[in-house]
């Protein structure tokens, strides 16, 4: 192998290492005290205080499934069903396989008043299991890693003309492509197929922005809705086929509205 090949491989490996470092867990010690205070408040059944502590951490830019799960717990204990389900749903985006989260979310959903309609068909969840079993972050990292690996192997083949490398590159390209397409769909879903949770106990879905507009139907806390459009102060939501209308923005919390990272 020529020294150019070695140099190229070193460069790509260095890039991959930088990528891993960039997304590797980094301690957030300034929030540790607040987090522990939240735990203590929760255990002392001061749920509102626990919410305030953990919410401040989330507002500080920490997007973490376990933190969101705790916020869901505290809201549920404080009888805030809508926010509880919202935080559980946000946690689910980051921890799709956490058994505690599934247990608590199922319990919270059992308290909702509206019958859930039109969830993803089970066959879709089976066929595209990786999308539902892996968090978006993992899918994205797998896509990027697969992509880097493919180009490394392909470059190696280009330089050495060894057939084994070409075969390995082709074999890598298939899962890499699947993950790249899944990640791309996830980005599309985040941008265009927004979902939200109804927060107040009862919300009137109206035909327009005005409070005097006709009430089309009523949703209750915890109902999961599709955000069709949004205006400055309102969301047009869809609950199921044929059920659509406008609600105030404050009445629905976007599931994908994860607090932004302070460094970004």
């Amino acid at each position, binding site marked *: 192998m020529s020294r150019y090949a070695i140099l190229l491989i070193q*460069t790509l490996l260095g890039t991959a290492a930088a990528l891993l470092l960039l997304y590797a867990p980094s*301690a957030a010690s300034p929030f540790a005290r607040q987090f522990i205070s939240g*735990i203590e408040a929760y255990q002392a059944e001061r749920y509102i205080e626990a919410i305030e502590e953990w919410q401040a951490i989330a507002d500080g830019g*920490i997007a973490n499934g*376990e933190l969101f799960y705790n916020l869901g717990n*505290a809201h549920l204990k404080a009888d805030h069903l809508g926010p509880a389900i919202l935080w559980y749903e946000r946690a689910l985006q980051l921890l799709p396989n956490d058994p505690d989260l599934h247990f608590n979310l199922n319990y919270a959903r059992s308290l909702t008043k509206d019958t859930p309609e039109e969830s993803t068909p089970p066959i879709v969840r089976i066929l595209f299991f990786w999308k539902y079993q892996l968090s978006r972050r993992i899918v994205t990292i797998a896509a990027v890693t697969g992509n880097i690996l493919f180009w490394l192997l392909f470059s190696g083949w280009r330089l050495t003309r060894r057939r084994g490398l070409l075969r390995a590159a082709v074999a890598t390209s298939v899962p890499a492509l699947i993950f790249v397409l899944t990640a791309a769909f996830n980005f599309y879903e985040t941008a265009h197929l927004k979902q939200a949770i109804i927060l107040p106990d009862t919300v009137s879905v109206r035909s327009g922005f*005005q409070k005097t*507009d*006709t*009430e089309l139907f009523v949703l209750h806390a915890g109902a999961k809705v599709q955000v069709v459009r949004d205006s400055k102060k309102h969301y047009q939501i869809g609950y199921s086929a044929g059920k659509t209308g406008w609600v105030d923005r404050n009445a629905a919390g976007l599931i994908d509205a994860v607090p932004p990272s302070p460094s970004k």
Partner: protein
Amino acid sequence: MRKGIWIIGLCCLLLSVLPAWAAGEKVRADVDLTTLTPGESLELRVTVQGGDGEVDTSGLSDFKVIPQGTGTSVRIINNRTTREATHTFLLIPKRQGKLTIPPLAVTIDGRRHHTEPIAVNVSAQVATERDDAPDVWVDVSISDPQPYVGQQTTFRFSLFQAVRVTNGTLEPPDFEGFSTNEIKERGSRREIIDGRKVVVTEINYVLVPLKSGTRTIEPATLQLGIIHADRQRRRSRFDDFFDDPFFNRGRVETKVLQSSPLEVQVRPLPAWKGSEPFSGLVGRFEMASKIETTQLKVGGSTTLTVTVQGRGNIMDAQPPQLTLPEGLKTYADAPEEKIQLDAEGYQGKKVFRTALVPIRAGEIQLPPVQLTYFDVEEERYRTLTASLPALSVQPGTDQSVPILATPQTPGTQKKRVAFTGRDILPPKEGLDALVARHPMRWPMFVLWLILPAAAFGLLTLFQRLKQTDTSPSATMRRRARQAFKSAQADRTADPSAYLTELYRALTSAIYARVGRSGEALAWKEAETLLQDNGVEPETARQASALLTAIESSRYSGAQLTGADRRELLDQTRRMIRRLAP
């Protein structure tokens, strides 16, 4: 004269401007009543001139606000067309006293306008002009204001009407903290109240408290239309208040009635300290049991029937636990239930049947059946006991048919595990919860997809650029590589071409090493050239010897064996690598 014309002109101008100035008042609010009694409603109209506006009613904290719709109208004044939108709300005061409808903010085309405040007096005293008893009023009650958790209680909404009403729309309370079920059957009766014939319509809800503590049931709101009878048409004033107004003639006055809030003190169930399990039933129940027959033969069967009946959460009743002795097989049947929901709540019975099959002869004593529930009347746990007679089992007639199955002992009886309590799992306490796990943004993702491809593109470009190096050394190196590849291809097919290409490959490698171009090279010349250009004498000598060997084979016409050719090829490959700069 001229001055007079100016004054008249100015007046005309002012007159023409005044309507426009008046039209400049963008929003205004007015009400139909400023004095009312608790439970009555007033109509608030907010008129917005010009563009569409959004009325912010969040400041109306002293009132319950029920939107009634928006109407628009177009007016033409002095050839100016103005559009007017009127937003109508029904306001129900939440308390007595001097209340104020504060200035309401109306946002029109991004600008905020405010209405004038309006004072409203809500007095417990009925207004003088309405000293008579009301024609229509509502009331709510609850059958037990201090129920236990799980105890059913009935919330009753009653409408009293002394006149005909129509278009009734009831907005029940949210019943936060209760499991709720509306009883479909509505009661209706006639009463004489203060000498007036009044129709009382009752709507009942069964409430089951889910948690202990003080709960407030918010007011229920009923919107209806009061029909002021048409004198030309007489009709019973006791018509159902949900009648279709199409068939009712006369003036209809819309009214909103609101009930009072109710406070419910939900008591927790006392701790159960008994040895037998608590069935989870709360209410008032009875239990009965019977055995179909007590005389039977081995392998025969008899049916044990246990009936639990009463008022309460009978639907949750589970089969009573039977601790039957050995020598009996049991086969439980699906329970039969007959449950009704009436104004008092759920009541009915559940029948559990179990087939008992003896597998040995003799006297089998059956233990009593027990069921523990919480009695809401006695406010204590009660254990119901139903004793069972002994079974007298005779040997079977067909002894050749053995009973293979072992008796089903209560300890091994399997049943579906059900939740005995509901709660959530605890929070995560590890500091891992503080590690930010932000999903990657899409521009970064695209960048990471492009970067390796771009690196590969650069590599390819670099290779191409390298190949276009026209220096003698690069040209000779390329030629050496190509010739060697050709030699490899011709090794078995064409021995002559193989040797020619091998010779070209080696001479090109030597020329590449010394940085010159050339086609042919004598062995002595090759050695000298290499030594002159800093190559070790031994390497130069070996290269020269290899060149001689190739030339000898090439021109001598000697037939090389396959092994010889392979050996020569390997030697040439090694030498080309050694000579590579």
